[in-house]
């Protein structure tokens, strides 16, 4: 069992590997189409990455592979030195994915959604923690409404609370600014800064290149599933 499995206050811990991400000649196929073709890239620890590219250029595919939601068709991905396929379980403990799908149960309330996740994570007093996080993303007033009644922006906020609950060492953010009002965008920016200060590696895929540049050090541009670097 790796020392980090189940460890938590990941913020203070030094990373086990010198590379946060190590992408080795990775390809991913969906049916007959290649979403990602022979991509290689490395991201040192401590740096954060801005992922850009047009729609369909493979950003989401890359993030989902890093999150171990899907497996690469060919090639290898290492997250904090661990193989995203062979050591899926450990990688999953380290990453947090903010995806296009919110991972929220429509029929449960905001609070119940967080409580279920907190229980699965083994967090003590899940209700208090859920309440804390709902305050943090500004949803306290709606905590007892089912997610089905939420607007797109509120779902985004709740999904972010879900990510924070896990306090990941690598945060994979897929379009975190979409569907948010200007105040929401500012809050998410502040949040990313906080995450970074706490030592989290942030991978940010967004079309808002200016905001993204301000928050990250390096950038990977994808075209037609191929990395163009910068």
């Amino acid at each position, binding site marked *: 069992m790796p020392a980090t499995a*189940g460890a*938590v206050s990941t913020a203070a811990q030094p990373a086990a590997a010198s590379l946060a991400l190590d992408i080795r000649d990775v390809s991913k196929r969906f049916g007959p189409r290649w979403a990602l073709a022979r991509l290689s890239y490395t991201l040192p620890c401590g740096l954060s990455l801005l992922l850009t590219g047009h729609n369909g250029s493979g950003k989401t595919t890359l993030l989902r592979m890093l999150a171990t939601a899907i497996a690469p068709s060919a090639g290898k991905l290492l997250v904090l030195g661990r193989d995203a396929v062979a050591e*899926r379980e450990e990688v999953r403990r380290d990453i947090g994915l903010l995806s296009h799908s919110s991972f*929220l149960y*429509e029929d449960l309330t905001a609070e119940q959604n967080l409580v279920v996740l907190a229980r699965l994570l083994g967090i003590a007093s899940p209700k208090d923690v859920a309440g804390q996080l709902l305050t943090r993303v500004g949803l306290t007033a709606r905590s007892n409404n089912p997610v089905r009644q939420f607007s797109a922006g509120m779902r985004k906020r709740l999904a972010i609370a879900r990510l924070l609950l896990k306090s990941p060492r690598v945060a994979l953010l897929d379009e975190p600014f979409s569907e948010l009002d200007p105040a929401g965008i500012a809050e998410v920016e502040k949040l990313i800064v906080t995450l970074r200060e706490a030592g989290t590696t942030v991978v940010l895929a967004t079309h808002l290149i200016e905001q993204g540049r301000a928050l990250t050090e390096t950038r990977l541009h994808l075209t037609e599933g191929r990395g163009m670097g910068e």
Partner: protein
Amino acid sequence: MSASFAIRPIGLLRAAGIILGKDLLIEWRTRARINALVFFAVATLLLFSFALGPDVDLLRQNAAGYMWLGILFASVLSLSESFRVEAENATLEGLKLVPTDPRAVFLGKACGNAVMIFALCLILLPVMVAIYDVSIAEGLPKLSLVLAIGCLAISAPGTIFAAISANARARDVLLPLLLFPMLVPALLSVVKATALVLQGDLQDSLRSWLGLLCCFSVIYWALGFAVFPKVIED
């Protein structure tokens, strides 16, 4: 970051329990759906009697078969619903990434489905008594045992196939196509066992039918536990 919470891995059964609780909570919060399901099953029972005419003896004789067909049809809907809920915002993927042991997901989901189908049985029982004129009073404990094992037998393979067909095209056709022929042994034995309880067990063959039913359940719960990680982990 101030809000770092003490995360510790939890056991398989605990995770299964949390998932079961969550599923039951969702079912409770969407009671309208269950009501519709119950009416569907009752309508099926009524339709059998309409299709066969008002021959009370015939209906009473075949009551067990009709009831289990009604339960089977309704449970297909309930099973596919239980994975449609997970597909809505890719929550099944969310569960996997927590990370949750896929076997815990199987146990939780299959238990949830078994509870749902059993609840359906309990609701259909009085309806069956009313429209098919059977008497259940004397064998009630035995009957509930048969019903419970029958529900367990349906829910395990049902959960595996519902998880598979939820992500395929034409899933509404695929689930019954895979599940119904699979369930033939369970259906045969549970119908026989129910009929024996309702009509009296002259040759003492209830035990052997229940045995077959238990075997079926045990095999599929074990099989589901073993293969479910393959099913949901790409």
